């Protein structure tokens, strides 16, 4: 099955046929709306457009400073263009445009042999490039400005030199660097402009600049309709770039991006850097598979009862290597979903020992959207449990249950964290610690009930069926889309989903579609 067909088939499970519009939502501004913002693109988004414009495989992202994140998401309205970023972007785009292959598809055919004096071809070319960079059709004065750059670049050089300067100009332009959601500012209302609707839709669903079909729909004013936006999103979701963006979303949501910034003691694993790559690879393939075949199902992510394990990880998991891209059922080893994958377990662990508090906190904050104060916020001194060769980690953390000051939070945190104790600091299965048997029992308050757990597989199964988790997933979609936390809009979006099908509420593709067609996507507060 092709990728597009696979996604289409998964989307059918959402009670939709690919190509048929869903009912539109209302047409007025909702009660709670997001602030109008200028969001500086993330480095991945910068890279996507640079690839579209330059297309010679040159990567800019490695030369740029890392993203500042919000709730671990790189879509972050607080990001800005500082001196270091601009300087490094200036240098990187200069290097990347040293030679351009004008025969590539993004350039009009006239560009292949045009002379520096060929203004007509220059105009056609810069217009096409600006459409990608500005995520809209450039105005006539904007094209004139770009032709001015072309003339300077071509002077004493050639057509390619002129286009190279235009590409540099576009990649450093504020009109490219900021995704605006300022709206049209009509009195009493503030809906995104047609162009902003197209830009936002493309960046949110595929992480790419809008393609011609989307630009056309935007220019015709069609994206004012939620149904039309949903239709466009359905189309974009069938492109592989959307899968890549979904993978990034999941990695950021679950904090798996942290894996690259940590180490493991040589007493735990001998070659962690190699193993780490295998862990990332497993999760990437698995998440991609859930996107393509299960419409990004929350339940499948948490308890799909399968994974796709690279050879380099098979030994670590204690299984035989399998053919590439083969689904393997690991539930017999206590691994039923993403929370039992080594990437998650190693990320939320210390260098040489497991970390029940970090694991429990990750589940409760990221999957249930709960908040916990830090001990220091409460004036409580953290006492790191002393190493004890004769005790399990659980036993060393016993004070959490006996000290009244700790118990308030840790009864909850540790209840969701101890269930992972059969996995060590790197995520390797273990049945004993310090010569003593492992106890993986725990509990969690879910959907208003206390659920008793035998191990983390039981936790994952419970989470997979939880309405509370589905609601948190919806909040995460809003947080990612908005580039910031806005509790009121998150709650309003969650409330709006009550009448939707479980498939819609329980899959990330369904949630993204619901958000894109909603008024929270299309409207902003008046300035």
């Amino acid at each position, binding site marked *: 099955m092709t990728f597009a067909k696979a996604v289409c088939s998964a989307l059918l499970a959402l009670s939709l046929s690919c190509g048929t519009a869903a009912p539109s939502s209302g047409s007025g501004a909702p009660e709670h709306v997001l602030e109008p913002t200028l969001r500086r693109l993330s480095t991945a988004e910068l890279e996507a457009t640079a690839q579209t414009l330059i297309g010679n495989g040159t990567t800019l992202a490695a030369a740029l400073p890392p993203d500042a994140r919000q709730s671990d998401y790189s879509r972050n309205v607080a990001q800005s263009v500082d001196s270091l970023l601009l300087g490094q972007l200036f*240098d990187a785009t200069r290097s990347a445009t040293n030679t351009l292959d004008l025969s590539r598809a993004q350039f009009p055919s006239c560009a292949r042999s045009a002379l520096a004096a060929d203004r007509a071809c220059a105009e056609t070319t810069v217009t096409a490039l600006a459409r990608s960079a500005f995520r809209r059709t450039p105005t006539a004065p904007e094209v004139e*400005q770009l032709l001015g750059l072309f003339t300077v670049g071509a002077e004493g050089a050639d057509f390619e030199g002129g286009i190279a300067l235009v590409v540099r100009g576009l990649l450093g332009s504020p009109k490219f660097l900021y995704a605006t959601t*300022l709206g049209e500012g009509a009195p009493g209302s503030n809906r995104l402009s047609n162009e902003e609707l197209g830009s936002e839709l493309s960046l949110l669903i595929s992480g790419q600049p809008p393609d011609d079909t989307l630009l056309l729909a935007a220019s015709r004013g069609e994206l004012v309709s939620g149904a039309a936006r949903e239709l466009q999103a359905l189309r974009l979701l069938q492109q592989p770039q959307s899968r890549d963006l979904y993978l990034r979303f999941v990695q950021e949501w679950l904090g798996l991006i942290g894996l690259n910034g940590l180490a493991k003691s040589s007493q735990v694993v001998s070659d962690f850097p190699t193993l780490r790559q295998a862990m990332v690879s497993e999760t990437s393939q698995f998440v991609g598979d859930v996107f393509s075949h299960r419409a990004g199902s929350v339940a499948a992510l948490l308890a799909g009862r399968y994974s796709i394990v690279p050879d380099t990880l098979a030994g670590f998991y204690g299984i035989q290597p399998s053919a590439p891209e083969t689904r393997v059922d690991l539930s017999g080893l206590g691994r039923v979903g993403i929370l039992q994958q080594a990437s998650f377990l190693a990320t939320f662990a210390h260098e*040489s020992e497991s970390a029940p508090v970090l694991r429990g906190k990750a589940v409760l904050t990221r999957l249930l959207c709960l908040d916990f104060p830090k001990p220091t916020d409460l004036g409580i001194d953290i006492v790191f449990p002393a190493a004890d060769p004769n005790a399990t980690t659980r036993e060393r953390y016993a004070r959490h249950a006996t000290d009244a000051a700790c118990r308030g939070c840790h009864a909850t945190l540790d209840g969701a964290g101890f269930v992972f104790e059969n996995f060590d600091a790197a995520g390797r299965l273990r049945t004993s610690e310090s010569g003593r048997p492992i106890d993986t029992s725990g509990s969690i308050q879910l959907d208003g009930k206390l659920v008793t757990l035998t191990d983390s597989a039981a936790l994952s199964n419970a989470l997979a069926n939880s309405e509370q988790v589905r609601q948190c997933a919806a909040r995460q979609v809003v947080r990612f889309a908005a580039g910031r936390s806005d509790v009121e809009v998150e709650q309003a979006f969650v409330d709006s989903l009550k009448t939707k099908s479980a498939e819609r509420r329980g899959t990330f593709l369904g949630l993204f579609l619901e958000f894109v067609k909603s008024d929270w996507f299309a409207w902003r507060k008046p300035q």
Partner: protein
Amino acid sequence: MIRRTALPISRRAALTALGAGATLAALFPRVRPLRAAPAPAKYFIGVYMPHGMAREFWVPKPGFQIAYEGSSLAPFDDAATYGRSFRDQIVALEGLDHTAGLRSATVGHDASRVILTGSGTNGQNASIDQFLAIEQGLGHDTPLSSLVLGVGSAEPALQWCISYAKGGTALPKIINPLATFNHAFGQFLVDPDPLAVARAAREQRLGKSLLDYWTTDLAELRTRAPQAERDKLDQHATALRELEKRVVGQAVTCAVPPPPDGADFPAVGSYQGGEPYFDAISNLQIDLMVQALACGVTHVSTLFLADLSRTHFDAGLPEDVHTDVAHRYASPGRGGTGGEPTSQAKLARQNHYTYSKIARILQRLGEAGLLEQTVLVAMSDMGDPSKHSSRQVPALLAGGWGGALRAGRHIDLGAEGTPSNRLLVSVQQAFGVESDSYGQSVDPSILSGALTLT
């Protein structure tokens, strides 16, 4: 209040105003300048120290003895290693709390944000380095307004930064000495080959056109931007101005140093194989930083010495300093009894290592003749690291502060805890900023009042 006096227009600035900067200068008027009379202090350096501090081996003995057995401050009185003693150039300042963090749940590792901003996670003000460089004009006439460096982690994230732009965004750091060299000195490398000269002239012409283009675009965007987004665009305008200085070209007052040899540090990232090279990287970053100050490339720099764990630099310390030294530190705190002297001595060894890097900064500043005019502040996010405590965080002040610091002594502000904002007030006053408060807090009382340092 800050005196508002027009900054004298230099010939360079006047020439620039005729070119690419004209539109920019008109649309984004420069902010309040420093007072007209030259401020006594000229250079600012802020350093982040990891892992908290072992007070037991930090407090100087009577007579300001700092070279006693086990003392973490010993590098500052080690003429054999650093060419001279810097005992008369430092103040060991005790009794500060990161109070702005305590008032805003910005504590533990997060309190690194408070060190130079004097505000917690919701603060909108710049850190003092950026405040001086951008808002007070200390960086206006240098090619770089500031040089934000780090070792190990480039992440512009809460626990990994001390430099913040106005608006409250963490600034990224340069962690690769080659990138530091290129950023600070790359523009001054001159290849005498005629073809190279022609290429450079063309590149300058192209660069000016790009700047004109971007400046116009930014101005247009600013007219549509909500008020809340203006800080962001101001920062962008600052970045354009800085790039303009680079493109137009500015003279430097010294010979450009040779570039570092990348073979000395095959990896630079924390947990990405960089650990064995952190010592060499720290030294290069320090040397390049001071050379940049000496060359007039910038007047302001910060250095974030990230975790520095698992480096094996000190055979007497465990592999994982973070877990096995900082987390195992057992101290009774001020006036208490008990604790584990062995754990305290271990943390002091790690502190000693970090201070050895600051001693190197002082050594280089001294060699360049910049010591008297430099304000150096080094602090950790925590006092007692095992408690992740933002209270009683020892500070090291160094340099001459242009006469605003009487050095060679231990100042103890007491056990009750003095807001670290007051140190920042003193810093800005050393640069001639006549304001009595720094930072933001729900409790404005903690923001005001300078320390008595002279």
